[in-house]
């Protein structure tokens, strides 16, 4: 069976690419420390020596639209082109191409359907910064095949938080039962408190530092029960109007497991939203 060698949860900051590649006067003062933290985080994936990456993210109204909106979608294609015109325009992100791990996509779709998740699928998916940003930060050589998993954290009605946790648990089971000798890492990106297009956006810190501190504690401690007891679809409006992206962190807590403390935790307080990086090495996953 395949081996789950690392579980990684990260915030997704589309400005990292531009900040980290800027030079001279264009380089923001926070860039050097940000790069240092990202490179240390990257090392946690490198050390796990994965063959395949399952990438959990969310389409930001690029390919998925309100006339046909899936809640959870798995890509199944030999390749994925990536990044969109409006991401090049706003964030300076480069065009990218990924190789797909189609047999794992097929396995997750078939077994996921049979496990009670009515997963949508796509055979031609252009992926966006929710997946390209963690590749840029964690695996910039982009040399590993991926299985993209998209969640709807964006266009209500959304699935309940507990459903994200359950999907994470299911992904874990499916990766570990996949008949393959591959080493798999599951990487997911979400948000801490975040406001987009509202009065609290682009402040000197994230819109709700208190929520962020609590969220980091839940994730780092694997406290799924505590997190689920406080987080609801309604409560997530309070820390910021785009904070429903936190549910992708909850999905990753589901992958990591109840009570599983993260082996690596780091945060970086930036303008607009706080960065947070977590890595778990499941039992036997250390190389």
């Amino acid at each position, binding site marked *: 069976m395949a081996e789950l060698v690392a579980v990684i949860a990260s915030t997704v900051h589309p400005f990292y690419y531009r900040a980290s590649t800027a030079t001279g006067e264009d380089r923001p003062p926070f860039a050097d420390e940000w790069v240092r933290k990202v490179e240390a985080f990257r090392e946690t994936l490198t050390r796990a020596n994965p063959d395949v990456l399952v990438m959990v993210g969310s389409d930001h109204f690029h390919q998925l639209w*309100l006339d046909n909106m899936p809640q959870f979608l798995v890509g199944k294609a030999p390749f994925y082109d990536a990044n969109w015109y409006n991401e090049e*325009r706003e964030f300076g992100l480069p065009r990218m191409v990924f190789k797909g791990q189609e047999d794992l996509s097929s396995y997750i779709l078939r077994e996921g359907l049979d496990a009670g998740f009515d997963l949508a699928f796509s055979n031609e998916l252009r992926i966006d910064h929710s997946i390209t940003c963690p590749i840029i930060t964690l695996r910039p050589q982009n040399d590993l095949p991926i299985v993209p998993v998209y969640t709807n954290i964006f266009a209500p009605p959304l699935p309940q938080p507990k459903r994200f946790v359950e999907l994470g648990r299911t992904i874990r089971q499916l990766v570990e039962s996949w008949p393959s000798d591959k080493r798999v890492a599951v990487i997911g990106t979400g948000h801490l408190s975040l406001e987009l297009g*509202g009065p609290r956006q682009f402040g000197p810190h994230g819109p709700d530092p208190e929520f962020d501190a609590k969220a980091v504690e839940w994730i780092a401690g694997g406290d799924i029960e505590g997190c689920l007891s406080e987080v609801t679809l309604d409560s997530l409006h309070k820390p910021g109007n785009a904070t429903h992206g936190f549910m992708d962190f909850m999905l990753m807590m589901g992958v990591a497991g109840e009570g599983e403390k993260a082996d690596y935790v780091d945060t970086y307080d930036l303008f607009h939203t706080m960065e947070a990086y977590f890595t778990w090495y499941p039992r036997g996953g250390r190389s």
Partner: protein
Amino acid sequence: MSKYLLNKFLFTVDRDPELVERYREDPRGTVEWWESTQANLILNCHGGEASTWLRFEDAEREALAAHDYVKLFEMGAHPFLTLTLFIAMFERDYEEPLGFQKEYARKLAHMSLPYPDIAT
């Protein structure tokens, strides 16, 4: 009220570089053209299979024609779509980094929780 149609306008304009410029330069004309020729197109379907029932209400048409992103927020247009498109059109007019984004926040400062419902 058609939050869906407001979002459809923002979505289809934002993903098309020519339309972004056209909407910046001629908002009223672009909204009129879009409503009369594009609003009912089902994406990925040819024109013969267009919808028949989508139109803006007067206040919605006016908010788009006036580039009034505060009004769009109040109407429950999806804030991500509005923000992304308006950054594309107006960030360039501000000297300071994030100058437009910060002004945008200030203009919405009167809004408090709960924000307008964005469900479509």
